[in-house]
Each structure stands twice: as C-alpha cells, then as structure tokens.
C-alpha cells in the first residue's frame, strides 16, 4: 500500500501534491531537503494546496523542511494550508510556529 505523493518546482515554490502519510513523506522529506540545500533561493515557498489528504506526518514533513531551511540560513514560507492541515496545526498547538510563516496565496505565474 503505497500512497501517491509528488513534488514539483515552480520558480521559488515547491508544490506538494497527493497523499501525505507516514510512508509517503519519507522520500518527499529527502527531495525537499536537497532542494533547500542546493537551488532554493534565500526566501522560498512550500505550497500544499494540492494535497488531497494529510495525516500528521504532513506536519512533521513541514517541520523537517523548516529545520533544513534554517540550517541553510534560508527562509521557507508556507502558502495558506488546506483546512485539514490547518486543523492539525491548531490541535498540535503549532500556530505560533507556523503562523508567522504563512504567506499570501499567490496566483501561479503564467506558463512561458
């Protein structure tokens, strides 16, 4: 039973899509960490609006990326979280951690 999750890049934004559970976050964590260490700009974004389902593991994934970004002296900001994830954030008392990092929703740039 492998859940489907994927990452794609759109400029300075890492787009997460699919199902985030205790298995699928493993490879996403590593791919995101590589991006943060290599090509990600000093201020970069994660967009989870295309996540169809997330367990708490999705929050752990974001926390892990935030730590990687800090180690690289980069700022990872978050696009507004889907309702379910926002609920998990509230339940876990992580508003104070995530709140200041939420960036405005941004229309995706027109394809060149």
């Amino acid at each position, binding site marked *: *039973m492998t859940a489907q999750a994927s990452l794609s890049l759109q400029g300075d934004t890492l787009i997460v899509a699919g199902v985030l*559970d*205790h*298995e699928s*976050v*493993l490879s996403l*964590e590593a791919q995101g960490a590589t991006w943060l260490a290599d090509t990600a700009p000093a201020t970069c974004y994660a967009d989870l609006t295309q996540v169809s389902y997330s*367990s*708490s*593991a999705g*929050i*752990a*994934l974001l*926390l*892990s990326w935030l*730590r990687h970004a800090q180690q690289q002296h980069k700022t990872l900001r978050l696009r507004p979280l889907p309702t*379910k994830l926002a*609920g*998990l954030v*509230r*339940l*876990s*008392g*992580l508003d104070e951690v995530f709140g200041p990092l939420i960036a405005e929703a941004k229309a995706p740039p027109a394809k060149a």
Partner: protein
Amino acid sequence: MTTPPSADNLIEIRNLRFGRGERWIFDGVDMNFARGKITAIMGPSGTGKTTLLRLIGGQLRPESGSIALDGQNIPQLNRQELFAVRRKIGMLFQSGALFTDLSVYGNVAFPLRVHTHLPERMIQDLVLMKLHAVGLRGARDLMPSELSGGMARRAALARAIVLDPALLMYDEPFVGQDPISKGMLAQLIRLLNETLGLTSIIVSHDVKETASIADYLYIIADGKIIGQGTPAQVMSTEDARVRQFIRGLADGPVPFHYPARSYQQDLGLEPVP
C-alpha cells in the same frame, strides 16, 4: 430488519454471534458505525462491550456473522492482513496499559518505531504534536508511575492516535476521573474526532458524558441490542429496559446478577422444598 451496506459506514456488523461457555454474549447482532462519527456502546457490566471491541480488532473471532471494516471482513483475515488493518485502529484500553518501563515519550513513540520507517527527528515531532494535543508535552520525560490516573489516560490517548488511525476505540475512558477531567476528556475526544477525521467508538457507563459527545448510541443487554438512536432519541424512549439503564437503577428488567446456580447449591445447602 437488516440495513443494506453503505459507504457512509466505516464498520458494518451483521448477524454477529459469539458465545462464552454456555452463554451467547452476542446473539445475532447488527450494528453500523458511521464514518467520521462518534458511536457509543452502553450496557450493564458483563454484557460484552469490551468483547465487542476485541471482535472488531480481530483479537477474538465470532462463531458466525460478519464484521466489515472498510469492506474487509475482519474474522476472515489472515495474520498479515490483520496486522495491516490494526495499523488503522487506535485503542484506548479499559486498563490504560502504558508500558511501565518506558517514559511518556517512549510510550507514544513506540507505535511509530514499530510501524514506520520515519527518522528519529520526525518521530520526535509527531510525539510532541500528540502530547501537546492531550496537554502533556511538558510531561514527556515522566515515567508512568509518576502520572495521575487522568494523565495516564491522556498519555495512552496520545499513543492511540500517534499513527493517525481511521478508527479509535475507547473502552471506559471516563472511569476513575473526577467530573472536571471527565468533561475535559469528553471535549478532547470530540475535538480529535473532528480534527483527525476519525471514526470513534466509545464504550462507557457514563451516560451524561457519553450522551454529550456521541452522535449515535447503542444499548446492549442479554446478547441483543435493546435500544439505539441519537442521544435525544434514546433519552426519550418509552422502552422500560432502556429507561432503566439510562436512569442507572440496579434492579428492574435488566438483571444485575450474572447468571448463576441456585444460591443454595453454591452454599452447599439442600434446596428448600
């Protein structure tokens, strides 16, 4: 009267029969557990409420009947399939059952270590998140012997939800708690159910707390379902046995005594002619 299967139900039990010794604990029972809802099971002591949770969890097998969880018939699964299904089930046992040689942290981390390949750092995040949700993030380094009864119950709850189960079963969550912690726990159960998108089953004697959070109630006695409905429906029923249970009377139509030999026999006396 059998209800057809529905996608709205996480669990459907049909014609369940299970016996202990000469007695049917369940004698042809049908139940539905609606997805995303809190369903409560109430009934006198010894009627089989804990047994029902063990049947759903696959620790016991019925004589006949089906217990479908997401379409999979639990009694027919092999060990490997059961192991996979149990990952979707969180259980808060009647006895609490923390591992006494592990700290609060170690207890909550345990299922993640057994069932996932997550790195330690992410395990830590998840444990802290769940401990925070039950108000025990600051108690992570305590040992179970250092916890109050209510704290131990909440630590066990954090462990039960750490894998984000689809189903959470609570066996007598309110027992041994003062009224304030009962109320807090009830609100927490409701909050978890909504935020985690869980389906919850609560076994409880506590009519007031249970009715305050349950979406649907079943009352079982003598191997049968004697009442069911929303809390409001059950509370206003005319049925004498259900009313007696709800009012908590010790005598009346539902027998207080476990079936026994005659008292004389037990006492080694001749029956009085």
